[in-house]
């Protein structure tokens, strides 16, 4: 039997949305308040969904300790209480939540062999969220 398991995590970070390819007025028109040069922050909620056969000997898709460990090591310790613009992966890439969710998906996909990574879902605020399932696969 195949099941899909979702775990929620939280982190807080600041960012500024600004593209070097745009003029100052274009940046302001595109990003609005998010273009404030001093940046601003969010409490993000991250949902990670993995799937696989339920192992009859454990009743589990994967051991949560492994998933929690990877997310803590590779995602939360990197992004929690950070300024996203100061990180190497966002030196050339605007740290929108779209780009952050694809970045997190790729980090987790590289590091997690115990189950299939279905998708990541990232809530920037309670009012907006972003999902990425890799490639052109639609999120479930």
């Amino acid at each position, binding site marked *: 039997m195949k099941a899909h398991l979702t775990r929620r995590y939280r982190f807080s970070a600041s960012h500024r949305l600004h593209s070097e390819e745009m003029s100052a007025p274009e940046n302001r028109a595109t990003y609005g308040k998010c273009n404030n040069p001093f940046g601003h922050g969010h409490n993000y909620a991250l949902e990670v969904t993995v799937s696989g056969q*339920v192992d009859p*000997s454990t*009743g589990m898709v994967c051991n949560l*300790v492994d998933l929690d460990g990877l997310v803590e090591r590779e995602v939360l310790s990197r992004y929690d209480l950070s300024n996203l613009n100061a990180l190497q992966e966002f030196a050339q890439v605007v740290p929108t939540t779209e780009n952050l969710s694809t970045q997190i998906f790729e980090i987790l996909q590289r590091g997690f062999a115990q189950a299939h990574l279905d998708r990541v879902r990232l809530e920037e605020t309670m009012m907006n969220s972003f999902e990425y399932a890799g490639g052109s696969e639609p999120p479930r």
Partner: protein
Amino acid sequence: MVYLTRKAEFSASHYYHNPDFTPEENRRVFGKCNNPNGHGHNYTLEVTVKGEVDPRSGFVVDLKQLKEVMHHEVLDAMDHRFLNKEVPEFSTQIPTTENLAIAVWQRLETKLEKARLHRVRVYETPDLFVDFYGEK
């Protein structure tokens, strides 16, 4: 096709233990969840059914019937119970959230009239849930 989701809550206790594992293996694999005295959760269950909207009633499913089936098949059996000891499925399976979602699906699947079961989602805590779509 329209999808309809009904929520319910129940509280139950469980522990994780595989009799084929040594005590050390059980502790290593299941950690704190291996405590034989058990521990509890407030579970939230979401049952999603799908179907065409009946032109006469405007319903996908009779919500009252869905609610009654969920009550009878799941809540009566699991609410305020020790899952390992009181729910037959878990005399042979470990009552993880994965197996709980599968058990709920199997209890509901044949009992619903008209609508087809699409998804069973079981929240063990607000930060952990499992979806089962009846996939082999």
